[in-house]
Each structure stands twice: as C-alpha cells, then as structure tokens.
C-alpha cells in the first residue's frame, strides 16, 4: 500500500454536492413537516391554493428527500471517499473533472425542474418514480455520468483492492440503474397519437398487476440501493476513520454484502401482500424479508463491534454518537420491516400509518444521521477548519433523537389503532366503526408527529448552521486530522 502523504485530493465536487445535500435536506424536511402538520390541522392545506394540498406536496417531500438529499449525499461522499480509498485524486484526470461538473449542474437544474413539474401536477403516479418521461431521461443521463465517473476513477486507481465502501457504491450505481430503467418504461402519448395533447404525458409500459409488481420491485429496492446500500458504504468508511478502529470482521462484511445483494430484491412483493399478485410471490416476499435480517444485522453488528474496547469515544465524540445511533436505528428498522412483512401482521399494518412510521425510523434515524455524520467528518477536512461548535452538535443530536422517537412511537400507535379499528366487529359480526371514526381518533398522533417534524427540522437547521459556520469561521487547521475530527 502506498503512503497517501504526497497525495492532495481535489474536493471541489464533494463540496458542491455537500451544499446540495444541505439545501435539499432542508427543503425536503420542510415540506415533510408541512404535510405532517396538514394531517393534524387540515386548514394548512390552503396556503398555496391548488399547489399546497397534501396530495400535491407529498411526492415533492419524498422525491426531494430521496433524489435530492440522499442522492446528493451519496454523490458528495463518493467524490470525497472514492478518491481516498482508491488513492487517486480526481483532478489527475481532466476528463473526470469535467464529467463531474456536468453531472453536478445537470443534477441541480434537473432536480429543480422536476420539482416544479411535480408541483404543477405532472406525475406518473408511481411512488418515488413520479417524474414524467423527460425528467426520467435526465435522471438516466446523470446516473450514466456518475457511472462513468466511478468506473473512470477505479480505472486510474493506485490501490488495487477495492475497499468495502466501493463495493457498496458500485452496487448502488448498478442496482438503481437497473431498477430505475425498468420501472420507468413509459410511452409518451404525444408522439404515438400524431401530436395530440400534452407532450409531457406518458403511459406506463405495464398494466395493472404487472405494473404493481414492477413498481414495488422498484419501490422496495430503491430503498435498498438508495437508502441502505450506499449508506452502509458510508459507515464502512467514516466509522473506522473517525474512531481509528479497524473494521471488526472482513468475513462478516463479505457475508453481509453478498447476502444483501442476493436477498434484498426478492422482498419487493411484501408491499403487495393480500393483493392480486399470485400467492407464491407474496410468500416469497415474506420469507425473503425475514432472511433479510441476516445481512442487515450483519453490517450493523460489524459496525457496533468495530467500536469494541473504544466505547468511551461514545461519550466524548458526538460524531461517533451519530454513527452508533444510526446503526442502531438501522437494526431497529430492519427488524421492524420483516415483522411487517409477515402476512398476518401485514393484514393489520398495510395501508396504515405504521408504514410511514417504519420508513421514518429508517430514514430519519439511519439515513439522515449517517449522512450528517459524514458531512461533519468531511467538512473539516475539505475546508481545513475545526467544527464550529461541539455543544451545538450535542444539542442537535438529542433534539433529533427525541424527534425520531416521537415520530415512530406515535405512528406505531396510530397504525395499529387504525388497523384494529378497520377490522373490529360487534357481537353480531357487523363492522363497529365507520371509516371517519378511524380518522378522527388519530388526531393526537398526527399532532405529535407534526411536533416531531418541527423538532427534527430545527435540528437540521442547527446542523446546517454549524456546518456553514465551520466552513466560514471555524478555527483553521494546519494539518489534516488523522482520526477524530477536532471540534470547538
């Protein structure tokens, strides 16, 4: 292995994507908080006329968080750690630099345009794949650019063996490419009908049950390859780097990686339990969801054991706290998911608020915590400055942890209450509740969830402030910190 002392990495791309991560994170969470409040206080639906209803805003929340915040975070961390684990500066290749910049601008402009299109009501209605066909083409272009960039950097690498994180980023690239392409196959109606109607409108290549299967094969695995795979890739880099500890077990990494790759995709049909897809597919979805615990917990345990003997760091380094909590929430949501995928549980849980509850303990607790930790680790090294305030980090940590707990506990109760009320019958076998009874009963939980949104968003603003202050007025560092990130 070569020494990296002589290597100066180029962080311009990582910096750009870090800005976008913060921008889209703020926007996505702001819209999320607004729509959470709308469910408790419906009058809030009328702030923006036609454009401000819950239904119109919800895809903006999900897409901004998935394709805005998370994907920016993936790009930012890749352009940071990709160079470091491959021991090559991206600036060594003019081509890759130009490519990276095209990717950045196309992505930025594309994301804004796509958001406006959703606001105007252009939507293919497939969850997390709502963008109409021209925006899909832009997404594919961006993804191809990123793919070329990854392959290019790997092509000119000095370190021959690919580090674990690179496996995960590669898998993220390949998985999302496959899923996105197949699920977004659509035919623009304008061209087939001889120039009639709206050029942006399209119809799906698949119909009915088939469309549902393809969609949830995508929907579930977009979570896999967007919210799990690259985030695991991040923690495999940032936790050892921050703690100064070596990964606990290489074999466990192998098992978890290849296990995750093989098992995850099968579980998509657990979104369609009790629907009209064939029974054997539903059973496969359930069974593989349970198997999925193994590779998921494998990674999480590998991370926790990496801290073996160094748990004192948890008390005095908030960055470690963020990452340990992230892997803990990863464990929570990867045991909760399989529970919900059991057919009898799903009969109650499906269509209720328990599902968004599950999504959010994964996303708020795992994805966002990990990405914020990554940024806390990267920014002092990219800007050569100390973190602006450790106190603020601590406060943010506890505020957001409280918010996540409020979110999922309220949604657990709401979901199970609603699921049980829908099926409750009186002594004569008649339904006990009309539908509206099962809505009004949820008001307190919706209010708690809205509060949790406000807390989490406040925490994110504290994060953004801390990072911006670090960039502009943190104490300057003369040399790069080896492990632990210095903070004031």
């Amino acid at each position, binding site marked *: 292995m070569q020494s990296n002392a002589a290597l100066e990495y180029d962080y311009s791309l990582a910096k750009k994507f870090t800005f976008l991560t913060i921008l889209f994170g703020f926007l996505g969470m702001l819209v999320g908080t607004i729509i959470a409040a*709308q469910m408790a206080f*419906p009058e809030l639906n*009328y702030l923006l006329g*036609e454009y401000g209803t*819950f*239904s*119109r805003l919800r895809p903006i929340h999900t897409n901004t968080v998935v394709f805005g915040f998370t994907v920016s975070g993936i790009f930012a961390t890749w352009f940071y750690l990709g160079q470091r684990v491959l021991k090559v500066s991206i600036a060594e290749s003019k081509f890759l630099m130009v490519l990276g910049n095209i990717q950045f601008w196309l992505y930025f402009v594309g994301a804004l345009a796509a958001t406006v299109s959703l606001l105007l*009501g252009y*939507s*293919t*209605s497939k*969850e997390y794949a709502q963008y109409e066909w021209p925006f899909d083409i832009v997404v594919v272009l961006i993804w191809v650019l990123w793919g070329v960039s990854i*392959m290019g950097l*790997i092509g000119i690498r000095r370190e021959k*063996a*690919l580090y674990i994180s690179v*496996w995960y980023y*590669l898998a993220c690239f*390949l*998985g999302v490419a*496959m899923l996105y392409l*197949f699920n977004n196959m659509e*035919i623009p*109606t*304008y061209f*087939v009908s*001889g*120039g*009639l*109607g*709206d050029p942006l*409108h399209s*119809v799906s*290549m698949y119909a*009915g*049950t*088939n*469309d*549902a*299967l393809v969609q949830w*094969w995508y929907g579930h695995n977009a979570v896999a390859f967007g919210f799990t795979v690259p985030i695991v890739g991040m923690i495999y880099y940032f936790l050892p780097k921050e703690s100064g500890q070596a990964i606990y077990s290489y074999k466990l990494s192998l098992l978890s990686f290849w296990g995750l*790759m093989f098992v*995850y*995709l099968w579980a998509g049909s657990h979104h369609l339990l*009790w*629907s*009209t*897809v*064939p029974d054997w597919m539903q059973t496969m979805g359930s069974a593989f969801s349970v198997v999925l615990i193994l590779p998921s917990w494998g990674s999480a345990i590998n991370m926790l054991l990496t801290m073996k003997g160094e748990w004192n760091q948890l008390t005095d380094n908030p960055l470690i706290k963020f990452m340990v909590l992230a892997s803990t929430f990863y464990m929570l949501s990867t045991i909760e998911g399989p529970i919900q995928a059991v057919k009898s549980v799903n*009969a109650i849980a*499906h269509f209720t608020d328990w*599902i968004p509850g599950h999504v959010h303990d994964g996303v708020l607790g795992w994805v966002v915590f990990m990405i914020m930790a990554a940024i806390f680790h990267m920014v002092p090294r990219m800007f050569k400055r100390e973190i602006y305030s450790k106190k603020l980090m601590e406060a943010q940590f506890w505020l957001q942890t409280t918010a996540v707990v409020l979110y999922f506990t309220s949604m657990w109760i709401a979901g199970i209450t609603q699921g049980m009320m*829908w*099926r409750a*019958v009186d002594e004569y076998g008649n*339904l006990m509740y009309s*539908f*509206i009874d099962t*809505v*009004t009963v949820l008001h307190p939980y919706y209010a708690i969830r809205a509060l949790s949104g406000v807390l989490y968003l406040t925490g994110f603003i504290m994060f953004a402030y801390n990072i911006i202050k670090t960039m502009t007025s943190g104490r300057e560092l003369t040399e790069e910190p080896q492990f632990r990130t210095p903070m004031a």
Partner: protein
Amino acid sequence: MFHWLEKNPFFFASAISIVISFAGLIEILPNFAKAGRPLVDMTPRTVLQLAGKNVYMKDNCMACHSQMIRPFKSETDRYGKYSLSGEYAYDRPFLWGSKRTGPDLHRIGNYRTTDWHEEHMKDPAKIVPGSIMPAYTHQFTNIADIETAYAEAVTVKNVFHTPYGPGIKSGKAAWEAYKPTVLAEAKKIAADMKDERVKSAMAEGKVPEVVALIAYLNSLK
C-alpha cells in the same frame, strides 16, 4: 475468489449484476402474460373517464386512497367484492395506492353519486364531519385535458391493442371528429351537478376537471 474479485472491478460489477437480477427474473417474468389478462367482457375506460383518471393522478388522490380491496370480511363488508387481477388489466399505471388516510375507492361507483361527489369535493368536512381531506375547489375551474386523454387512448390502442373502437385514431382530424362523443358523455354527468361554474364551462364546450373526475369515480365499480 472474493479477494480476486475485489481486485478486478469489471468482474466484481458483473458479479453484482448477476446476483441482483435473479429476483426480478424469477418473481416477475413467469406470470407476466397471465397477470395481463382482462376479465371477460371488460371494456376499457372511456376518454372522459381517462381524463378523470388523469385528474386523479394530477391531484395525486392515491396519496391517501387505495384501490385494492383485500380478501377479508372486514374489507368486503366495508367496500364490496374483493378486487380481482383482471379488473386492472387496462390500468396504466396501476393506482392501488399504499396508504388509506381515506377509504378505499375501488368500488366507490357503487355507493356514491355524482351529486355526492360534487358537494364532497367542494367541502369534504361538510359532507363527512371530521374529515381531514382538503377541498379541491380548483377542480371546478380548471379545465380537464380531454385531448391528452384521447391521445392516451390512441396510444394504448396502437401499442398495447387495448380494445378501443374504430373511432379512436391518431391525428387532429380524428380527434375533432371524436370530441363530440366526449362532450356528450360529460354533459350527462354535468346534468346532475348544480355548480354554476361547471354549467357555464360546459356551455362553452369545455369540461371542468371535476366532471371528468366524477365520470372516473363513477366508473369504479
């Protein structure tokens, strides 16, 4: 083997691709043709209903409403017969939804009327006290894009052989010839409505979004 793969990125990436492709191939492909079959004697939606479906998608009703009645007594008691795969054979995209903040709509045409929908879209909480659904008053002034709906019918007819009649053909002229059929259908719906804005738009030969939407909702049976 793993050590070797980790030094050979091309083969590493190929290995990932193979491992992740299994599930889709085995779970989705074998059933594809069978799951695509419609029920016997089923007709595709009319152009007006398609326009209504597009309003349903534009205002993203599926964020809160499902169209999938599961085979439980508690669901069939509440919503009607459980859903069958063939019923969705012409639905592009499928609109099953994944969340029931509001009730399922797959058979709403059986138990709600045009009049009910008109009042409900204006002020849901007036019709259903305690409802948290927002009013969709803009659907009374926005004009439905029936030309795009027609283009959609032409597309699915030409590409997927969805059984539309000979009147559905590509080109402006065919659309102009077909348009009165759509307007006539819309008039029937609007005849049961009271809103003045709807009446005056219809008189000008325009179809407000709410009329198309109700045509679609009434067709969900």
